[in-house]
């Protein structure tokens, strides 16, 4: 099978297109192991992986060929055994968000049902973007999939637990945002002085718990 598509992204980067999910994160791990710090940026997307090599790391076409072989290998290996995965990160949530009633109305559910459906799944951090530590969590209940708010808020507090489209997220820092706010957590999602600075890493499994 040669289903892996690799596209150039400038002189020393490529984008590998993949099936969404475990494969992206498995390939990210394999790339870090294969190239170490020479693979300067290894950035998961929803169904892709961007790899930027350091200057002088090699000729792009040769790197792309090696990466293609690695991607085939990872795809061929299939999903890792479920027993080996670490337990999901548990995020305690107080479901008191300002959009809870509106979400219930829009989905035809009661508030209690919205909370039940939001706390039921195990989510995967598909990729991080928008802001440091802002993880796009996939695997949520499709009934809760709503378009973003028509008018974004100027100020969403850090720790706000929110939904939009097929995603859930926790706002790591206070700032503008257009997602529906269901509640909040007291966990710190982004702390530049902490190691690691970001709580939810790409590929991590996450569950929300109502408190």
């Amino acid at each position, binding site marked *: 099978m040669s289903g892996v598509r690799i*596209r*150039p992204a400038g002189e020393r980067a490529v*984008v590998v297109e993949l099936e969404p999910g475990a494969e992206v994160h498995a390939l990210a791990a394999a790339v870090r192991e294969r190239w170490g710090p020479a693979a300067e940026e290894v*950035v998961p997307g929803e*169904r892709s992986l*961007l790899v930027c090599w350091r200057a002088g790391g090699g000729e792009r076409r040769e790197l792309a060929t090696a990466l293609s072989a690695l991607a085939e290998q990872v795809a061929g290996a299939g999903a890792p055994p479920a027993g080996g995965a670490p337990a999901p990160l548990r995020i305690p949530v107080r479901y008191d968000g300002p959009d809870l009633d509106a979400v219930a109305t829009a989905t035809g559910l009661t508030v209690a049902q919205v909370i039940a459906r939001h706390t039921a799944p195990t989510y995967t951090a598909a990729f991080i973007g928008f802001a440091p530590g*802002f993880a796009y969590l996939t695997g949520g209940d499709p009934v809760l999939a709503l378009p973003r708010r028509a008018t974004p808020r100027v100020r969403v507090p850090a720790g706000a637990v929110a939904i939009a489209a097929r995603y859930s997220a926790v706002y790591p820092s206070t700032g503008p945002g257009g997602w529906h706010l269901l509640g909040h957590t007291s966990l710190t999602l982004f702390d530049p002085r902490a190691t690691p600075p970001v709580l939810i890493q790409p590929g991590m499994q996450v569950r929300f718990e109502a408190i």
Partner: protein
Amino acid sequence: MSAWAATGPALEVLAPGLLTTVQDLGRPGLAHLGIPRSGAADRTSLRRANLLVGNAPGAPALEAVGAGLRLMAVDGDVLIALTGAPVDAMVDGVPLAMDAATVLGDGATLTLGAPADGIYTYLACAGGILVEPVLGSCSRDVLSALGPAPLTKGQLLLLGDPLGDPEPQTARVGCPPTFSILDGPLSAPFPVLPPPTLIGGQPTLAVLLGPDDEFFDQQAIDSLLTQPFTVSPKSNRVGLRLSGPSLPTRGSNERASAGLAHGSLQVPPSGQPILMLADHPTTGGYPVIAVLAERDLDRAAQLRVGQTVRFRARR
């Protein structure tokens, strides 16, 4: 960090100018956590300024935008160099040349005018600017508000020890000395200054098509590679907004969010491309028609609002 105990010369900020930040070469390797690389918008000019004053090329220096930065040397002389966007610089009323190391005497005041061309002027000081790094870098990221806040009036900028070595010298590019008389203990490799960044004019910048060029029809590709684009207002360290012929996609303008490389030309639904610069977001949901060649990134960052630019494809 023993350098924090330094009690050598410092710079007092008499006026911060329009926007002056501390910049080094940024915080690479964290994009997967949503943390942009940041760093000097024009990295060549940062390296050049640092090498002129004997620093490691990536030492923290000042990046000034617009006119009005005024600094006074206190508690000693400071070796300085200005590179990047050319400005009328004065030391106590006497013009100061760009691209040369100069001693700013104790008590003397440096004033920067508005750049004649370009955006970012770099001021390196021997020893580097001493600020606390955040995630391994002293750079201010204007998108994520990481790193030291922009300069404010009255602030005192401490400097590192010029004889101490804030960074290993391995990053320096050496060349053999021309004169054999220099052989011996004094024959440290000469640092090779990068050439000044080309600033001004109507540049043609090299791009590599992709990764999402297949989202666009041939007409859009042709427009990108033959028509001029103008730099729009609201351009900054995050990105350069360009206006020109619309670059429509064949079908949907949205694709699954993917990592963004430095220099990506991302095309939002407006059809007007945005060139991703130092503080660009780490992922994006719109197609990237092409990515700028690395050697043209610095020149692109120095483009001013209203300046026109063209793109040519390279393989």
